[in-house]
């Protein structure tokens, strides 16, 4: 055959400006994380968007870890897939890392120890640099050798990729303000790398060119953003139990509280953080604090939610405001503790035994982690029920470029329906579980309010509208119907879906949520460009507002894209809105890596083309 593949055909070396993926293969605990972040930030400071992702093991030291940076002048912040330049610093993962490089791509490695030619690929450009040798010659201490090796390779890469060294120096000066010695030694390491690269290494086809694609956006991880949201949302009690990937949220809350919530006169704290003995105790404390009028939250991940479910049912039944931030990871069981998934939708939406239903919020990025965490406290107080902020590892633990946080100072906290002593004295009837105005939400009183009025007994057992123990069927039905009505009320209070129409009218739609967002934006552009038109709706909350039903009704086929095996959101749409399953084909990605635009474009593209043919 004439079209036979020639085994020796070499792909041309990749050439791209502001559009490539660099992946660092490191060893956990070697100090590479800060060097890699420095690399990402330097590109950002040149006005070129980047989107980094940590791929790390459940381990403290010694196991492989990766940092993948997508340089994206076009501003596509989802994971692209594929690697154009591999910085292979970990011999353990050499084979696997080599395999991932795109044909025509580049390999940067430490050639202090020679490797046989058989260990390399011939369809890529190999760039060796004697990093260990340089370090050993320059530094005597083991830790210094290790740490500065990272900075040296950043220096070398800055030459290869044309990254402005001035920007890196500025980042150093910010980071080591007042620590002159550290500053100087970092400068030195950077230039060691730069000098070697300028003298010995060839130019490559990948390049960063200064631009203005970053604007006033901020670069922050979702956990930090959510923590700041909790501070702004008025949270005063945080009870938590460490679990990846949520721990850094509680730690960031502590950090920002120490800065922003200490009484300047007395030096005392306007917050209380307790590291509980387990997640049952965490949620118990949140329930107690919420019952007693504080804004309280816990932060956890799947296994923690599993433990919390009895209490979540109590909070639902007894109507206590509770905020739970679930930074989802791969389940079930311990699952993939350091990988991402959106697989706790069902376990959170219907957490606990009996008929329960809870509010879920779906932030797409750190900006929305901030907004929705703050808003969760208003919703919980207004609706007197558990509210989940459903973020995930991809958003929570990776720095993401996003719109700056905003705060409307004219807006007040919504503390919901709380009767004060004056209200009670004015003769208003108080029935703790009485629906007085048709929204399903009763009034409550905080303990200690009034000497003789408004006290009640809170319990998870059934009761009448005046909180008196009752096992009477009608009392039970009144109560649980009212709980449903509350959920109905919630539909207009939760963040509404965001629609994006295709360039041309279409009978195809797609529904997605959360961390799928950046990959979806990119995929929709690609699909539109390929004349595959799909209208999109990004869900931001459960229960589903009416516009979700309208969107599905307006399209013949609506793809539901999510990062779990069982199409959990799709199941909820079918169950809650009673659409036929045929109308809602699932597009699922659940191997623990963040979903990519390439995957979505291919899946939806193929299926739309097939549907067009068959109709």
């Amino acid at each position, binding site marked *: 055959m004439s079209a036979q593949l020639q085994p020796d055909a070499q792909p041309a070396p990749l050439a791209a400006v502001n559009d490539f993926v660099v992946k660092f293969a490191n060893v956990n605990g070697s100090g590479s994380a800060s060097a890699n972040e420095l690399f990402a930030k330097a590109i950002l400071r040149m006005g070129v968007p980047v989107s980094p992702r940590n791929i790390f093991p459940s381990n403290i030291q010694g196991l492989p870890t990766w940092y993948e940076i997508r340089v994206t002048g076009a501003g596509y912040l989802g994971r692209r897939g594929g690697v154009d330049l591999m910085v292979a610093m970990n011999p353990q993962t050499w084979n696997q890392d080599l395999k991932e490089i795109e044909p025509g791509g580049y390999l940067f490695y430490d050639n202090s120890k020679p490797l046989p030619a058989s260990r390399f690929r011939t369809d890529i450009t190999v760039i060796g640099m004697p990093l260990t040798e340089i370090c050993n010659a320059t530094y005597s201490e083991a830790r210094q050798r290790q740490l500065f090796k990272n900075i040296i390779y950043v220096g070398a890469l800055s030459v290869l990729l044309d990254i402005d060294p001035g920007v890196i120096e500025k980042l150093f000066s910010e980071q080591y303000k007042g620590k002159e010695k550290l500053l100087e030694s970092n400068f030195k390491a950077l230039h060691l790398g730069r000098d070697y690269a300028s003298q010995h290494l060839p130019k490559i086809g990948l390049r960063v060119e200064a631009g203005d694609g970053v604007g006033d956006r901020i670069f922050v991880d979702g956990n930090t953003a959510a923590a700041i949201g909790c501070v702004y949302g008025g949270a005063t009690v945080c009870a938590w139990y460490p679990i990846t990937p949520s721990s850094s949220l509680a730690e960031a809350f502590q950090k920002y509280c120490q800065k*922003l919530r200490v009484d300047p006169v007395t030096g005392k704290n306007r917050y*209380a953080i307790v590291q509980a003995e387990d997640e049952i105790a965490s949620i118990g404390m949140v329930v107690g604090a919420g019952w007693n009028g504080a804004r309280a939250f816990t932060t956890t991940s799947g296994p923690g939610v599993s433990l919390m479910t009895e209490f979540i049912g109590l909070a639902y039944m007894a109507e206590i405001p509770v905020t739970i931030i679930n930074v989802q990871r791969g389940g079930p069981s311990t699952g993939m503790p350091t990988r991402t998934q959106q697989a706790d939708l069902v376990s959170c939406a219907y957490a606990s035994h009996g008929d329960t239903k809870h509010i879920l919020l779906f932030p797409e990025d750190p900006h929305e982690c901030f907004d929705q965490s703050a808003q969760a406290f208003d919703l919980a107080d207004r609706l007197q029920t558990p509210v989940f902020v459903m973020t995930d590892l991809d958003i929570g633990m990776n720095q993401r470029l996003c719109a700056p946080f905003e*705060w409307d100072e004219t807006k007040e906290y919504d503390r919901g329906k709380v009767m004060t002593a004056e209200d009670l004295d004015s003769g208003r009837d108080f029935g703790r579980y009485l629906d007085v105005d048709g929204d399903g939400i009763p009034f409550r009183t905080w303990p200690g309010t009034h000497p003789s009025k408004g006290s009640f007994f809170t319990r998870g057992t059934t009761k009448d509208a005046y909180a008196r123990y009752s096992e009477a069927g009608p009392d039970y039905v009144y109560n649980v119907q009212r709980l449903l009505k509350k959920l109905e009320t919630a539909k207009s209070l939760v963040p509404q879906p965001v629609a994006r129409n295709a360039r041309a009218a279409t009978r195809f739609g797609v529904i997605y949520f959360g961390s799928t967002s950046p990959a979806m934006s990119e995929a929709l552009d690609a699909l539109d460009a390929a004349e595959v038109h799909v209208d999109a709706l990004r869900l931001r909350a459960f229960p589903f507002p009416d516009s979700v039903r309208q969107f599905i009704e307006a399209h013949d086929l609506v793809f539901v894209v999510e990062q779990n095996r069982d199409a959990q959101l799709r199941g909820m749409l079918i169950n809650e809105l009673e659409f036929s399953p045929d109308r809602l084909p699932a597009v699922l990605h659940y191997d623990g890596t963040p979903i990519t635009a390439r995957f979505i474009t291919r899946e939806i593209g193929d299926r739309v083309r097939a549907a067009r043919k068959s109709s």
Partner: protein
Amino acid sequence: MTYLAKPKLHHPTLPQNRVCRTRRDYEGKISTLCAGCGHDSISAAIIQACFEMDVEPHRVAKLSGIGCSSKTPDYFLGNSHGFNTVHGRMPSVLTGANLANRALLYLGVSGDGDSASIGIGQFAHVMRRGVNMVYIVENNGVYGLTKGQFSATADQGSASKKGVVNSDTPIDMASLALQLGASYVARGFSGDKKQLVPIIKAAIAHKGAAFIDVVSPCVAFNNHPGSTKSYDYVREHNEAVNRIDFIPRKEEIVVDYAEGQVIEVEQHDGTILLLRKLHREYDPHNRVMAMNYVAEHQAKGEVVTGLLFVDNSARDLHEHLNTVDAPINTLAAAELCPGAATLAKINQSLR
């Protein structure tokens, strides 16, 4: 009707306390427990203690787990907010409530199943944290509400009503509380109100984690011969280390105990505990001695009662966390929200 409202019969001549309340104001709904249940006597002791301590009922938050014992908060202090939480987890809810508002008096009521079996984890940690509260375990050695199974406090070798012998080692809640750092530890008996009321009063005055183990026979499932939590057994084996009298602040102390038999213990709020020693060598300030004493006498089959340990200088969880003096549920938005200008600075730090 599944609840019983108590008729409000206010007698005009009922004596009032210093906050102008009569005993009636400390009562709750009519108990639905078995006649003769030890738990009802404890409720009565709580009512008397709160009345005599001039506690304002609405300034009390009463919390419990699940069980017959945990039902009792509905039967006292009807003007207090109550919270019947989930089985074994009252300590965490109480902790959270306490964090939200440090100005209320927190009364936790639990059972031996609730605190020693399913809830031993939370019991341990609430003591360790030094939450300012009065924590009462109404200890009958069985699960009353689920009809008589052994709990973790049942003595080894004791027999259930159905004749089953318990082979597991018992947990002694008072010893555990001592070991875990509770700063007030006492044991009472539901059948001895004279001893129990002052113990509860002193616990109310105590600042820190106050724990009271009250042996409280279950007449339905654990009051038979062979039980070590029956009225008869406890009466026969009660080994009281002291009798306490609780003297409110600034009151003159006029008690006619024999010299050397009485010690005064000043509480954090200036109130005085008068301890009438029944054992010359017993020192309630010595945690280690208390633990040894309880263990030694337990080995002899005796139930040591009285004030076992008190530490007047204890620091509570709020002090450990350095929280503001005002209840944090009263902090206004201005004190909580750093505002837009600060947010702009935060944004700048993230570029």
